């Protein structure tokens, strides 16, 4: 037993040394101690939102005020509960959180509030009343997107729905909003429905399954949460010309935005179907800057300011009428109305382009890409 303990201690020490772990960060005088509890880090949206949040933390107005420490809980709500508890224990002033579950964290959040810790959630929701929330109205996303699609189809047509992750609030609200609109138009017929898990890759396999027994002639439009870029690529492979692409509703991937540009627009770094196609699109996303905004609001509140319990971030809807290519992607340029980025700068078409907010001039394209704030 003693020997086991000894070896254990030795190996644990070795591990700590091997990982090059520094001494625990102690709050420096006069700085707020802020923790970020992320959920899953293994997808593009999360990585981008985290980059923007980190950029916000080191932006000129913030860097002297806060000490930010980032932790990842993975997809497990139990783990996030414990993470929040231990952040409170470690003396957090504020906890910014991407909540894995809108309900499961309530106990831990309530406890944190009771100890005077500010808890603010971004993108997804925490239902505990003492928490602050920053997100877009997901139900409204469903309604607006469906209305656009119905209008494009003239109130009549067969559509395919590619949903998100079943069992989540965001997915349920979006579907609810959309189906309510579709139900009002008896001419709209939903011919296939699948769970795309908010991933272009899964969206592709699911859409292929739907098309195994149908062909594109039997589909007039697509309502997807993530997947228009892929759907347009698949139509191209099936020999459908750019001008005949079915109208599609979906998230704000840069690939999809580039496809919306009129045919013939000059872009750098186009490749395959990552090129201007004049595709008929409605594009709006869960905003990637909400984390950065949440951090900013948290600091405002810690400094004695007032912030609303719910910051309802307006949607940034881009259609073929409003699509505009950015040259560099600075915040200033985006504030003048550009909303898509050169493929040469963004080689990944699945990258989310919804990074602009008038409320966060500290962060632009460099923030989303590498975590650098605007100069």
């Amino acid at each position: 037993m003693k020997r086991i303990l000894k070896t254990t201690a030795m190996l644990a020490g070795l591990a700590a040394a091997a990982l090059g772990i520094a001494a625990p960060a102690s709050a420096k005088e006069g700085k707020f101690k802020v923790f970020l509890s992320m959920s899953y880090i293994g997808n593009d949206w999360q990585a981008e939102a985290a980059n923007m949040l980190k950029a916000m933390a080191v932006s000129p107005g913030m860097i002297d005020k806060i000490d930010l420490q980032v932790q990842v809980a993975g997809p497990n709500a139990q783990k996030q509960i414990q993470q929040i508890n231990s952040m409170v224990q470690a003396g957090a002033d504020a906890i910014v959180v991407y909540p894995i579950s809108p309900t499961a964290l309530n106990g831990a959040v309530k406890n944190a509030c009771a100890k005077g810790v500010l808890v603010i959630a971004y993108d997804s929701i925490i239902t505990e009343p003492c928490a602050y929330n920053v997100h877009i109205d997901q139900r409204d996303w469903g309604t607006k997107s469906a209305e656009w699609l119905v209008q494009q189809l003239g109130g009549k047509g067969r559509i395919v729905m590619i949903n998100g992750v079943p069992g989540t609030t965001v997915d349920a609200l979006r579907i609810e909003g959309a189906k309510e609109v579709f139900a009002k138009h008896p001419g709209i017929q939903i011919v296939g429905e699948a769970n795309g898990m908010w991933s272009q890759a899964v969206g592709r396999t699911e859409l292929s399954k739907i098309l195994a027994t149908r062909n594109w002639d039997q589909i007039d439009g697509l309502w997807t949460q993530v997947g228009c870029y892929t759907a347009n690529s698949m139509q191209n492979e099936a020999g459908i010309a750019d001008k005949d692409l079915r109208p599609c509703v979906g998230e704000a991937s840069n690939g999809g935005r580039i496809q919306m540009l009129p045919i013939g627009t000059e872009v750098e770094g186009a490749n395959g179907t990552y090129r201007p196609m004049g595709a008929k699109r409605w594009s709006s996303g869960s905003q990637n800057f909400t984390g950065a905004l949440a951090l900013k609001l948290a600091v405002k509140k810690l400094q004695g300011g007032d912030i609303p319990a719910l910051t309802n971030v307006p949607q940034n809807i881009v259609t073929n009428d409003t699509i505009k290519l950015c040259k560099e992607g600075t915040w200033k340029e985006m504030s003048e109305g550009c909303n898509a980025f050169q493929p040469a700068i963004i080689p990944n078409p699945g990258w989310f382009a919804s990074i602009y907010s008038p409320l966060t001039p500290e962060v632009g394209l460099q923030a989303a890409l590498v975590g650098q704030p605007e100069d």
Partner: protein
Amino acid sequence: MQMTERLEPALRDGTAGRKWRLGRDRGLLTAAGVLVVLASIILSVSATPLSYYDISQIVSSGTPLAIAGMGQTLVILSGGFDLSAAAVISLVNVSLAALPPDAVTSPVLLLLIGIGIGALVGMVNGALIAFLRLQPIVVTLATMFILQGATLLVMDKPGGVIDASLGEFMGSEVIPGFLPMTGALILACLALWYWLKATPFGIALYAVGGDADSARSAGIATRRARFLTYVLAGGFYGLAGVCVSGQTGAGDPLVGNPMLLQMFAAVVVGGTLLGGGRGGLTGTVIGAFVLVLMVNILLILNVSAYYSTIAESTILLLAVLMGALHRRSELAENLRRAGTRFSAWREGVLARQRTTDVKRLALPRRADGVPADGVRVFGEGQGASLIQRLGRSRPAILLALPAFISFAVVLLATEFMLGNTLLNGNYYNTLLVLSCFLAILALGQGAVILTGGLDLSLPWTIALAGILVSGMAAGSNVELIYAVPFVLLVGALIGLINGTGIVLLGLSPIVMTLATNGFLQGTALIYSGGTPDGFAAPLLRSFMTQRVFGVTPVVIFLGLFVLAAVVLLGRTAFGRRVYAIGNSARAAALSGVPVKRTVVMVYMLSGLCAALVGILLSGLSGQASLGMGDEYLLPSIAAVVVGGTLITGGRGNYAGMLGGVLLLTALQTLLAGTTFPTSVRSIVYGVVILTAVIALRERR
């Protein structure tokens, strides 16, 4: 190899009586040691001292995992495997949250409802496994899907309210300032376990897990023991669900799901061996808290986000490695053996250093090629008629048949429900393109499962391969010449690392491959900086998406792959060694099979297959994305076991696995063509798997 040692504990339990032995409790002691070390790190390094309140909170957040892990341990001790455990937790959570407000306000009643739901599910599982003699992993896989569907039926999104009395009860103190209610629940479960262990059921449990046939011969009611195991385990999961509900105060249909892999990790860290017969519930509780404390450790050490999975995996590996540092461990055994070999080599007495003089018995041959003693030498089938050959492969055909029959039924159902199927070339082409990923993974995962292991590192091997190949090729064909071989090599290397850890260090496959997965996730994040870039080469894209005379090139490739896979597993020395190891590693070793080398090769094969899937998947999507492998882990296991492979190893063939792949893909295609809600789809999916294995099960 865990297989070789399986029999010993049962024997020892019987003969050594109550005499305490270090060897038997080593796993438990190691886990306890690790827990003590982690706890003391937290206590000493923490910026602010931990109060009783903080500790009671850690206990509370670890309780669901600990209790669910106890249930899983029971199943694993009996030689089974329960995939439905996490789904039970979600179902209990939403069921309690969906109760009308103020309908039940007694925490004890809520507790009983939760445990009741769990036990009910356990009864279904137990009946199917014990009385219909179905494979635990297939049954619980099917019930997992059914339960997930039922959960979504009860509640399709987070919400509802759980009576506040439960939260108060769970947050209360049994001995104020000393023992929180959740801690007391764990202690109560442990007390139940120590009582059970001494009953005839407890002895039967270990005996069934050790060797079911011997147990039956010894007069143990194995069926009843199995049945009871699942009922009890279900009760534990139910209780865990109640604990979650008490903590959260509301329902969430996804709350339990991510706990499944953690549960297995807790079981293995706690010293219980997969395959049954050795270990215990106390270890699992400790294992669960080792995992839970990791959250605090990572926070204290301030590991940066991209490195967090790497740090976590390192701690997990170190924790389990402790168990490998004793005199009778696999590692020590290996070192000793290497030493012996080395000295034998120096003395020049190794078998291969001797000049050998092959002496074969010269048996006179008969004209038809059968040796005079009448024994037909295997492989000398030239003279055999087709019927004889078919007869010889009858068991193999029977094993593969159920999956293919079910596949045919699904095809008919698709024609009936969606039309445009049976005579539609496009349908088959799409089906085969979509099947290719699982078909390739099934070879690797299948070979691993045949040797009694499991490869959990597939998701991030796939993702890393996709990211590497897209990044290197960057949309150009020429680069493929070196990018593809390089990435395949990386896959094989990942397998080599897995295999080496398992064989040389004697680590459990679950822990080793889970840790590798964590390392790979960190590597992929660091390499890509959070956003993978680059494009699949145009050639790769056309390979996966273009049609040549109505056929996508990958379909032809799949045909060749299937042929190669059938030959590899069924007709080569490597394949036969895999089966031999699965049947009995010790018997194989004694018959001269290079067990260790073969096991390492099996994991390399799996890594290679996963890398190939990563390459093809990036070709289909046009580029790589971070989580692209996440959807393939459970299906890879499902396809293998639905195709008739025994998870405990030794039985199954590639044709069957392919049937499993086709069945599952066709079923998904059918469901995607409908507008059923997800809940109904999930239930249908589970029911079809279950019906297929029940209706076509092997009759004795």
